[in-house]
Structures are given as C-alpha cells and as structure tokens.
C-alpha cells in the first residue's frame, strides 16, 4: 500500500516537473489546485474543506475528513496573450499555450483529532513564448517558471468548533528566460534552479452547524536560482544567478449551507507580490547582465460561489471572482503581460460511489487589455495585449 502511494506521489511530481506552466491566477501564482474548487472560482477555498485539496487551501480543514482520502487533479490551462503595436500591427503570435498542471493530495486520520496530509502541487508557474523573430525578440522570446511543492501537513481538532493546521513546503523552482540580443551575442538562454523551504498554516472555525470560517496563510519563499547563460558569444557564457522571492498569501473564506440544496461561499485572498521588484541576473563576477524592473504590487482576489446539490450523486457549482494583477502599467513586460481579470466558473461533481467522486470545473477569465510601453532593448514594444485564459479541470477523489 505504501509502495502504491509512493508511486502515485512520484508520478505526480514527475508530471509537475514536465508539465506545469502558464499562470492563471494573477502574476504567476497558480490557484488551480482542485477541480472541486474550480467550479466555484475557488470561493470559500479556506473554509470549504470538502476533499483532500484542503491541504493546499487550509490544512486545518483536514479535520473534516475521516479515514484516508486521495485527490488527484489535472488542469488544462490555456492562456492567450496577443500583442498588437500602437500602429495596429500584431506580432509574436500567441504567447500563451496550453499547459497541463497536475496536483495530488493525500489525507489520513491518525487519531480522532489528528490528521496527516501530503500535497504535491505547483503553486507557481508561467510560460510565455513568442515567435522567435517577433518585434519584441530583444526583450523576450521564452519565459518559463516551474515549481514543484511538497507539502506535508498536520491538523489538530482543538474542539468541536475549532481546528488548526500547518505544513512545511519544500519547493523546487526552475526557470528559463530567453531573448535575442542580436549582434555578437545572438539568442541568450538563461536557465536556473533552486530549492527552498516555506511553511503554511490555517484555522477553521465552525460558527454553527451550517457555517464555517477559514483563514490560511502561506509564507513567502526566497530563492537564489543558480544556472547558466548560453549565447553564441563564448565570452558572454557562464554561470549566473537570480534572487527571487515568491510571495506569501493570506486568505479568509466563509462557507454557509443555506439549505439542503444550496451552499454559498466567499473568499478574500491577499498575495504579497510587492516582494517581486526586479528580475536581476548576475554573472559569476557579480556584474548584472540583465535587469528588468518589475515593481509589482500586492494583490487582492475576491470571489463568490454557490453549489446546488441536485441529489446525493450530482451537484453543480458556479463562481465569480475578481483578481487584481500585480503588474503596474508602467512596468508591464512582454514576459508577463498580466492585467486584472474577472473569473466566471462552472463545474460539477458526480459520485459513482460513496467512496469516490469525479469533479469537473471550467473557468473563463476575462482579462482587461494590457498596455505595454518598453522602449529598450530596442526595437520598442509600444502597444497592447489582448489576453484571456480558459481552464478545464478534472479531479478524482477516493476515500478508503
């Protein structure tokens, strides 16, 4: 049995390494951690705690689960970002492409008041890639950030009303940036990786039998990515490093069972993107070889959702969210042409048996057109982006 679980775990980790990709929450955070939550636009994330994905959203929620449960989800995220110059000339093709982001969660009851959980997921991810000869090739061709997060967690039920939980996050990051620097250097490809620790904790409070409030915090994680830059000029090649601090986040969620048929939920989440000031790559001598000011701002995401229980086997979900982008207009780059977005999400669940559930969720993100005004490296990028994101999520949950 342990062997099987281990196999599942490593399979998911392997898939994450290969496939995690495009950001669908603002910045390059990936909120896509469950298909059950997707149907509600992740409203109520820290309070809903209806399957093992609560390991990510609020570890205290594990107290609501009994026995053992495993939940595996995959999210096909299809962002689209198309640049058009101020003169009306499109270039670069669609910088977005479909990426499949999997995640897996396991929760087991150790004692009546103690749960252990394990999450394997990708809390951050990004990929934009333009045609190699596009107008902005000197500023960006490919940008990729992948993360893999291993998240062992514990929850403790303090009493009937209150549970608390916490976890450690061992996170691997890998990144790749490329641009055509022209002239003697040609295309420069910068790659790097690092591993670092973070933590998360949360609390879940049952106001009454039908209402609960959850709060959850995930810490920022500081990395120093180490890697290489490769160009066609040997002089310019060599080891490089990049300091980056991925943001902490804090969520407060509410869940209320309005009737036998209807649940409603809401969430407010804050993400500390103001840690992301610049992408500054230094060589072995300490000289800066590439520096892009970002100056991102903290963001707030608000969401509302409702679930309709058709019968014991079927339920339907819907959700709405507004998600701020951390990117100031003056600092928007071709690598992450992000802007504020409105989520419209639908989903449902089918339970083939008492022990298993299949969840499906879909969201469309309406993203405001995003202006860009970056004069250098020339040619300048002055124009706007037309952006949207579609995500389809599926999840299988099994209790045993």
């Amino acid at each position, binding site marked *: 049995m342990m062997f099987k679980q281990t196999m599942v775990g490593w399979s998911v980790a392997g898939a994450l390494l290969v496939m995690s990709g495009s950001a669908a929450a603002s910045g390059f955070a990936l909120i896509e951690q469950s298909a059950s939550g997707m149907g509600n636009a992740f409203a109520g994330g820290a309070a809903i705690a209806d399957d093992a994905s609560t390991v990510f959203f609020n570890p205290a929620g594990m107290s609501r689960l009994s026995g053992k449960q495993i939940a595996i989800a995959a999210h096909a995220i299809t962002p689209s970002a198309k640049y058009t110059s101020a003169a009306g000339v499109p270039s670069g093709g669609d910088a977005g492409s479909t990426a499949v982001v999997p995640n897996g969660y396991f929760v087991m009851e150790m004692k009546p008041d103690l749960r252990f959980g394990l999450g394997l997921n990708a809390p951050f991810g990004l990929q934009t890639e333009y045609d190699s000869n596009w107008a902005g090739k000197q500023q960006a061709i490919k940008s990729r950030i992948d993360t893999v997060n291993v998240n062992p967690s514990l929850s403790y039920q*303090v*009493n009937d*009303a209150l549970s608390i939980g916490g976890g450690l996050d061992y996170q691997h990051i890998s990144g790749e940036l490329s641009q055509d620097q022209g002239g*003697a250097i040609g295309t420069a490809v910068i790659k790097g990786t690092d591993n670092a620790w973070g933590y998360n*904790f949360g609390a879940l409070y049952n106001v009454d039998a039908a209402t609960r409030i959850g709060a959850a915090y995930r810490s920022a994680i500081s990395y120093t990515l180490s890697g290489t830059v490769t160009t066609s000029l*040997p002089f310019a090649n060599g080891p490089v490093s990049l300091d980056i601090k991925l943001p902490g986040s*804090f969520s407060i969620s509410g869940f209320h069972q309005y009737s036998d048929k209807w649940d409603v939920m809401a969430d407010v989440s804050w993400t*500390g993107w103001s840690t992301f000031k610049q992408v500054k790559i230094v060589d072995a001598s300490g000289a*800066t070889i590439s520096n892009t000011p970002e100056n991102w701002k903290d963001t707030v995401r608000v969401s509302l959702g409702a679930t309709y229980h058709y019968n014991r086997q079927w339920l339907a979900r819907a959700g709405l969210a507004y998600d701020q982008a951390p990117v100031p207009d003056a600092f928007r780059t071709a690598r992450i042409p992000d802007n504020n977005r409105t989520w419209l999400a639908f989903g449902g669940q089918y339970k083939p048996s008492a022990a298993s559930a299949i969840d499906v969720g879909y969201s469309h993100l309406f993203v405001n057109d995003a202006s860009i005004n970056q004069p250098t490296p020339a040619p300048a990028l002055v124009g706007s982006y037309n952006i949207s994101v579609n995500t389809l999520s599926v999840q299988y949950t099994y209790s045993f």
Partner: protein
Amino acid sequence: MHQFKFVSVLLMAMILAGCGGGGSDVPAKPRFAAQVSFGDSLSDVGSYNVGLVNAIGGGQFTINAASSVKATTPTNWTEYTSLSLGLDMPCAAETGLDNGSGAAPGTPAGTVIPVTDYPLCNGYAQGGSRVTAQPGIGNKLLGGGGFALTVPVVTQIQHFLTAHSGSFNGDEIVTVMAGANDVLFQAASIGGGLPAASGVAAVQTAASELANDVKTQIIAKGAKYVVVANIPDIAGTPYVTSIADPTVRAQTAGLMDTLVTAFNAQLKADLPDSANVLNVDAYSASKDEVANPAKYNLTDVTHTACDLASPYNPLASSLGCNANSLSGTLAAVDHYLFADTVHPTPYGHLLFATYVLQSMTNKGWY
C-alpha cells in the same frame, strides 16, 4: 467566546506576518531621448564622408558599408548603441575636409570641402581629434597632405552647447572616448626627441583636461548619463604588432602602453564612477580580445581586414575602406578585429558596443 478570541489573535498574527515587507521600488530605467558622442575616429560616424572620401566609398574608420545601405547599416559602436537604445542612426554634426591648400591649383580633387554644421546631428566625434589641442592626427598642420578637421573634444562639446542653448536636457546618453590621438601625437614627439617623461606628463594633462571637460562642460551643463571609455590597448594593434624588427616592436609596444596606461590611470583618478559617470574599460576589453580571440568569435587579431595598398583606397586608411578594398573576401575578414592598423572592423565595433551596453546594464542604464 474564548474560541473567537483565539481565532482573532490567530488572524491578526497571520495578517501581521503576511503584510508589508515589499521594500521600495527599484528605479525604472532611463528613457533616452538622444545620444550625443564626443571623441575621435573610434566614435566618428562620418565627419569626413564628403568629397574624395565619399567618392571612394569611405567615410568611417572601419570597413565602410556600401553607400546604398550606409544610412541603415551600423558599423561604429556608437551606431550600435544608439540603435539598441531605440534611437536614430547617429549622424555627423560637422562635415568637411581641409588640406590647407585653399583648393589651389594642384590640390587633389575633393580634399577641400567647406565645413558644414548639422545642428540636428549629435555625432561630434572626429577622426584624429585630440582632447584639447590641435593639430590632431591627420590635420593639415602636420603636413603630409592631411585633410582631417580634428576639432578637439573640448571644442566639440562647445559646439554642442552652442547648438543647444548652452545645456543638456538630462535625457541624453553622452559618450566620450578620446585620448588615443594624444598618445599617438606624444609618441611621435618622443620619437622626434621629446623626453619620454614629458610625453607621459602631456598625456596625463590631456586626461585631466578631458575629466575636467566632462565635469564642467557636460555634467555641470545638465547631462546625467555619461559613458566615458578609456583608450584601448594600442600596443596590441597591428600598428605595433606588425613592426618587423623585434627590438623596435618591443620598444614601441612599451612606449605605447606606458602612454596609454598613464592617460587611463589619470582619467580614472580624475573622473571616477559616479551617479552620472560610467567608466568603460576599453583598454582591458580590447586587450582581452587580442589575447583570447576565440572567446569573442574573432578569427584574426593581427592582420588588417582592409588592403591598405588597394588602388581602390588611395587613403591607405580604413577611412577609405569598403568591400572593394579588402585584403580578402568580406566573409573571410568578417570577424577580423582590425580594419586597419588601429581601427576595428564593424565586428570589432559590435563587440565593443556589446561591452558598453553590458556595462550600462550593470549600471542600471540599459
């Protein structure tokens, strides 16, 4: 009630733990409105591209691009940097040729062309110019049929100020690269009997004057972004390395290096890096290119790409060199470092522009 208090405390702790800590913003990169260049042949974008020079398809001190594409083909490092900054192709602020004959009978055709100023052009650097004094290298005052205007750098700066109401706007990238002709002038003087110590003192004075010009006539007049390149390694150029006699070669190399390093050290001492000044070490960069050509994809660092005896190039300098007067095919000499005995090929210029842009990146200017 206790539970509510507990949750409240927990929430407050979380908020305190999570909030703030972003620190202050990093400054945006400067957005340059213009590039202004002062200096000598290494930054000259066509001061002498008139008359005879233009007629033979020359104009810059490198392998010149064909006339039909010259306006859009960068061949000088200041052209590469300007285009990389999203600015226009630089143009010469002043053109003309003057061999001093006043176009008397017998004057070679096209070597006396009236001086014309172009107030909208910011390429003030002129081949042969010294920091403060005339005659520059190739000037009529030195004899030998020279026709170069060689307006000194201090005067180039005054010309800019005159054309721009006496000041810089502060949004210009200003490049200054001079001193090599002071070194060549003093080396010739030492060869003619001047005590070496006097020559060294003279280049040190020139360096101090250049530093003072940058401080009082460029920065004090409003410029905020000044790139100052020192003198490249002259001892490693074919001007020295092609000397056949090993004793003379070694002596010349030693003298050149003494003069160049004296100038560079004085310049750095008088004009250290600051918020407004970025020193670019052309000396070390060029020395490394000669020592480690493979690192720079250079195929030849000892020969000249231009055939300096070509009948198509009566100037015997890269000033008159183009695809018709190369020592081999363009493809073969494409990654030579030197066009003539002291001036780089377009690829050599590109390497230096890359180095300058990298230095600007490190400074936060690019």
